[in-house]
């Protein structure tokens, strides 16, 4: 090699590749945790669920049903009615009638009390909901028990209190309900997303027609039972099950005043387009490719934990997942070494086992998509590292995965994978880190890790994301607004700001 080409190589920018560590920790060994399955004995669910319209369960007009699988076993769990145009008509009519006749004429404080009831009913039956959520969707019981279900209850509790205080939320204006809200939610946090949608809609005096995702409809229909138990007036909440066509029938229904959608950017754009030229209001919570920026002065061990929470929470099926890791060059090896060690302790397996950290990938389709991206990453020249954990033989499971030696233009860096797959890049200056973080059409959420307060504020204000987690990641709270910049969506859910999409200001 000539001296010149050596020099050329020296200045050429290379993607980050970790050096191999000289000392290694050993996580194998003699003390493995035995199975600790959450008992599902007390949990009841039906073999088949009809649609929930006008306060009762009714068979779909075409009498068609589709199966829902437990993704951890690939076995059928139950089946759901497929709602078609006629069913949606019926649901919207019942929601409209409830809006006109009961819900909008009810005293706001009484409206609030119904919502408080729902919160309490979820709390009372929390364990049951958690188990069902894990069986239906594949998420670890630790998360459905500690995150999804308590947060769902908290959402209802929070918004219940708003019902009779809307005059204080919008200075100088009177808030009026919109009417009937059509709501379409994803499969990653089924009950929690239902709560995010229904709680503010009801608190502001709207009625709803909600469609859960076709792979995870179970807890929504269990929630319908709670609506009955709570004595909620008929038609205030309607739940219709089905896939894309059912959703499309809701989006395009003439008598719906507002669409709230959480899902992919691709579908979000289709919905936005469908609504073009109409007076329907809408909120969209879409995809993301969250940057997680680690500065060299960060609390590293907590940052590593934050990285794990950012990308491996809920199998990485999180729109705000921190899927792009940016580490300042001087600490890259240290961080990757710590991260690999930490990944070795992640337990992948039975969602109902209390020790499981990463459960089942939600569906075969998603499982295939993630595996395709793993292949793409390898073909793009990235280096793949996966933890050595055991995974079950049946069911859709994916090892936590790390890609180094990646470039900004790689597809695995650009596209949302929605799985436990992290890419690692380095940066030298804060400016470079921020620039790379912003170099994406998405803008949902991101993390910043540094011990320096002023750097937190500077970086936080320059990254174009709706949520900035500084020295933490993937935290949620009903009081805290959530939603994206750019192609990650429009509008906010949660907090006072989350009321706005459901009211007309006069």
């Amino acid at each position: 090699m000539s001296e010149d080409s050596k020099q050329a190589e020296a200045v050429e920018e290379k993607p980050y590749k970790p050096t191999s560590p000289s000392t290694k920790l050993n996580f194998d060994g003699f003390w493995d945790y035995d199975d600790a399955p959450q008992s599902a004995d007390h949990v009841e669910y039906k073999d088949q669920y009809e649609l929930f319209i006008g306060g009762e369960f009714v068979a779909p007009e075409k009498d068609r049903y589709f199966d829902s699988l437990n993704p951890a076993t690939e076995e059928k769990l139950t089946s759901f009615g497929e709602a078609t145009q006629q069913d949606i008509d019926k649901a919207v009519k019942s929601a409209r009638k409830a809006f006109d006749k009961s819900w909008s004429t009810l005293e706001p404080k009484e409206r609030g009390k119904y919502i408080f009831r729902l919160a309490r009913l979820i709390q009372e039956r929390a364990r049951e909901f958690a188990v069902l959520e894990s069986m239906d969707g594949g998420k670890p019981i630790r998360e459905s028990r500690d995150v999804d279900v308590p947060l769902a209850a908290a959402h209802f509790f929070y918004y219940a209190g708003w019902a009779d205080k809307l005059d204080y939320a919008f200075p100088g204006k009177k808030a009026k309900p919109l009417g009937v809200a059509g709501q379409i939610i994803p499969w990653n946090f089924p009950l929690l997303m239902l709560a995010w949608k229904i709680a503010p809609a009801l608190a502001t005096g709207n009625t709803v027609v909600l469609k859960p995702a076709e792979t995870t409809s179970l807890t929504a229909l269990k929630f319908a039972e709670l609506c009955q138990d709570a004595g909620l007036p008929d038609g205030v909440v309607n739940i219709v099950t089905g896939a894309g066509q059912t959703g499309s029938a809701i989006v395009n229904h003439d008598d719906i005043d507002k669409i709230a959608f959480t899902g992919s950017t691709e579908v979000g754009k289709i919905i936005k387009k469908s609504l073009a030229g109409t007076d329907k209001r809408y909120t969209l919570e879409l995809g993301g490719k969250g940057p997680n920026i680690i500065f060299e002065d960060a609390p590293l061990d907590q940052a590593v934990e934050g990285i794990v929470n950012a990308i491996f929470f809920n199998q990485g099926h999180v729109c705000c997942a921190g899927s792009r890791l940016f580490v300042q060059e001087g600490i890259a090896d240290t961080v990757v070494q710590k991260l690999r060690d930490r990944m070795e302790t992640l337990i992948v397996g039975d969602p109902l086992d209390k020790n499981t950290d990463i459960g089942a990938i939600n569906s075969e389709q998603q499982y295939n998509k993630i595996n395709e991206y793993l292949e793409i990453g390898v073909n793009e020249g990235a280096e793949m590292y996966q933890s050595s954990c055991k995974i079950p033989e049946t069911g859709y499971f994916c090892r936590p995965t790390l890609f180094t030696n990646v470039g900004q233009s790689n597809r695995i860096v650009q596209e949302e994978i929605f799985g436990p797959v992290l890419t690692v890049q380095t940066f030298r200056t804060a400016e470079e880190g921020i620039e790379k973080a912003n170099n994406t059409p998405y803008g949902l959420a991101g993390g910043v890790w540094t011990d320096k307060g002023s750097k937190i504020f500077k970086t936080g204000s320059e990254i174009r994301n709706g949520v900035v987690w500084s020295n933490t990641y993937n935290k949620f709270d009903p009081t805290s607004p959530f939603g994206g910049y750019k192609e990650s969506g429009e509008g906010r859910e949660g907090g006072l700001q989350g009321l706005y999409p459901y009211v007309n200001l006069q």
Partner: protein
Amino acid sequence: MSDRIEVLKTYKTYAGGNFPRTESGRYYKVYDGNDNILANACQCSRKDLRDAVVAARNAQKGWNGRSAYNRGQILYRIAEMLETRKAQFIEELETIGYKTKKAKAEVEASIDRLIYYAGWSDKYQQVFGTINPVSSSHFNFSMPEPMGVVNVWAPEERPLLGLVSVMAPVIVGGNTCVILASEKYPLSAISFAEVLNSSDVPGGVVNILTGFRDELLEHMTTHKDVNAFFYTDPNIVQEQRKQIDENATLNLKRVRRKPVEDWESEEAQSPYYITDFQETKTTWHPVGL
């Protein structure tokens, strides 16, 4: 005594703090109230739009980086400059058929509107920002942040008040904008650009083009480096409205339509015009030793 020959004004566009002619070399005729030709206005092309968006994007970070107090002062300065040129604007409105009283009312309302929004510059954050009492050990707050670059169709009818009413809330919140002036009455807008230019408004914060809506609609609403589109037309044809919405899906552009009928009414100003062009950013941080 011989009549003095009047020096006529050439109406150009305003982009990046300069007054370029349209790159296309095209013009269209602007008439007064009696169908007499008043001036030739630039018939801007998509390339003029492209350049204006670049100017707006380049200016956005710096503009947002100014203190709220400073932005308020600059808006106030625009009002001051407009006040000193009141007579000119009244006269200009008269040429297009305004009665003096109405012209005066419009100019004065425009000045007052600028001051209204100047005063909001460091307050809307306080009214619409929140501290969120999350249940974990974190400090959590939400603040409005500008969307970025906003393309605007100024109202067709009120050439000055309409323009000021759509511009002020957009820029006071740290956005920059490209405004397409009233097609029929573009002259006040260009004269207003001269006011902007003498009012400490950094170049590129407000860019004003003249030309045809039908021609520029496509690019104003599809441009992928534009974050929002703002228009007001109460009588827009359905087909065009749909097209605007559809084009906006390309990059999830936020579309805001305010079909205001009377720009002197109360409904024509409120802090909600500012927040319409703000994103909410929520920040979390642990609380510990």
